[in-house]
């Protein structure tokens, strides 16, 4: 198989145990999504070769990188596994060009060749003008892009993105998410994105693996996860409704053809709209309140999850709605029932996509 094939088993003390299986085909991005302490950092460490497995294996394309049962372990410096760290970890004593040239240089390129490779990558990422800056002279977003350039310049056979946006402010996070997709576009290697932020996973990953307590509790596309969350944590995370569409002056036309009114009026063009499931209200009759968005629809699915219930509505715009179990009973919410949906324009988040 071309790509990553890994079964990661790490036993650390009595309390923590990682047991995760990951398969990522070449050119695809898998997200490992989980709360803090779920085993995400350990996953990065064993894939990068900074920590050895206790059992299982890591195979990249046809190369076995780690397999305790056959006493195989390829250390980090021989793996060609690139890592973009959360806090970039650029070398403070080198300028941007020196940082990006570090990988090619250490992998045996001559000094001038390594610099050429670095310049090409910086140019491709459209940050050539940063070449002579020191890391401390970069903004958080710039530093993170340089860190990506540094990892890419080393021609990784697997790219690990360790919470790449967590240390950034909201504005740079949105910009970086968008550029990251373009930046990774040409990379043939499989990528693993480690994150606790479902938006990262939804926007960047082809497949999402939700990890809790060292184990994958659910895998699937964003849509699959949102529709059938298997644990309350996933329900909470993926309950977010993600809708692709096209914005013009505060009106978003979703790919479903449905039109949403948003409070955000300055963003035009392709957008990603997110709506929290608790920001949506269900009514048995046509609502008359201040909500700018309301339409009639049908319930396709109702699922009770302890102290809340998730209701799935269908055409014209499929959405996940979260209500209390009491509301389910009082309004008689059941598959097939007709309801009205209402959403305030201010509850709709618009991110340029």
């Amino acid at each position, binding site marked *: 198989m071309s790509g990553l094939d890994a079964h990661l088993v790490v036993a650390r003390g009595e309390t923590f145990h990682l047991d995760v299986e990951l398969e990522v085909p070449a050119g695809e991005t898998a997200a490992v999504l989980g709360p803090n302490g779920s085993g995400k950092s350990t996953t990065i460490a064993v894939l990068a070769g*900074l920590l050895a497995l206790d059992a299982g294996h890591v195979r990249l394309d046809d190369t076995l990188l780690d397999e305790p049962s056959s006493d195989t372990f390829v250390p980090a410096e021989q793996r060609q596994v690139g890592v973009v760290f959360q806090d970039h970890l650029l070398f403070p004593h080198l300028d941007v060009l020196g940082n990006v040239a570090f990988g090619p240089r*250490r992998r045996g390129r001559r000094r001038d060749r390594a610099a050429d490779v670095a310049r090409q990558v910086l140019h491709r990422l459209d940050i050539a003008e940063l070449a002579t800056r020191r890391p401390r002279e970069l903004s958080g977003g710039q530093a993170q892009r340089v860190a990506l350039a540094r990892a890419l310049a080393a021609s990784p056979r697997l790219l690990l993105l360790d919470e790449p946006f967590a240390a950034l402010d909201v504005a740079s996070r949105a910009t970086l998410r968008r550029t990251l997709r373009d930046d990774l576009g040409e990379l043939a290697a499989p990528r693993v994105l480690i994150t606790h932020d479902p938006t990262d996973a939804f926007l960047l990953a082809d497949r999402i693996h939700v990890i809790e307590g060292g184990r994958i509790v659910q895998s699937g596309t964003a849509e699959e996860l949102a529709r059938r969350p298997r644990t309350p944590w996933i329900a909470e995370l993926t309950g977010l409704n993600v809708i692709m569409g096209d914005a013009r002056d505060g009106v978003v036309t979703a790919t479903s053809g449905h039109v949403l009114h948003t409070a955000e009026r300055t963003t035009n063009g392709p957008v990603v709209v997110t709506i929290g499931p608790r920001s949506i209200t269900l009514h048995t009759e046509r609502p008359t309140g201040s909500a700018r968005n309301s339409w009639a629809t049908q319930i396709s699915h109702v699922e009770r999850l302890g102290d809340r219930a998730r209701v799935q509505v269908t055409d014209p715009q499929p959405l996940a709605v979260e209500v209390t179990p009491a509301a389910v009973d009082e309004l008689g919410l059941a598959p097939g029932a007709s309801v009205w949906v209402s959403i305030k324009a201010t509850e709709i988040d618009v991110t340029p996509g």
Partner: protein
Amino acid sequence: MTTRRTQSRPPAALVGLAAVGALLFALPLAGLLGRTPWTDLPDLLTEPAVLDALRLSLITSLLAALLSLVLGVPLAWVLARVDFPGRSAVRALVTLPMVLPPVVGGAALLFAFGRQGLLGETLYEKTGFLLPYSMWGVVMANTFVALPFLVITVEGALDNLDPRVEQAAATLGAGRWAVFRYVTLPMIGPSLAAGLVLAWARALGEFGATITFAGNTQGRTQTLPLSVFVTLQSDRDTAVALSLVLVAISFTVLVVLRDRWWGRR
């Protein structure tokens, strides 16, 4: 005119004692400068005995600094990065010369490397080489007292270095040696330089261990501080001139290290 009092006056007792403390440093320096025969200085400083001492001191202290660098950086790295049983014992041992009276250090060196010493006896029998009372004995005594300064400075710098930066280098294809050479070493560069200057200054001023282990032979083991001590009995002017040289060197060191150790507010 009114004076605006923004803060209450500092306690008189503290200010008084602080002034006495400052005088403790200022007065001897003033005494030395006041006693300096400025006009005869060029002649005094070019006397053969003085030139011998100056030359020997420079050679031995620089060799000791170099030796501290070659031995001290790996020692600091092992202490900071390798977890081995007895690490804290080794760390204590390394810093011992900083608190040990140098005379005791010199005596200890004799018991180890002297003609009848632990290692010295074998060394003498096998090669005929004798460390004590030779220039190499001076270098050894100097290194003994200087090395801890370098180790402590460098180890502190290594402790403050985020090991994940070194991990990042490893993921980019750098082996352990390359990580050390191209990431660790440049990142601790300023501390390394400071440790080196400190070690060199300490070696230059070394007296007790040197005179105990290497003796006091002009041209061979009589360094500047030893020369100051000897001439103080017979030739005050020369002693003062030599002292002035040492003060000048110390001052230069302080200026070089000023950003690191003082004036950084």
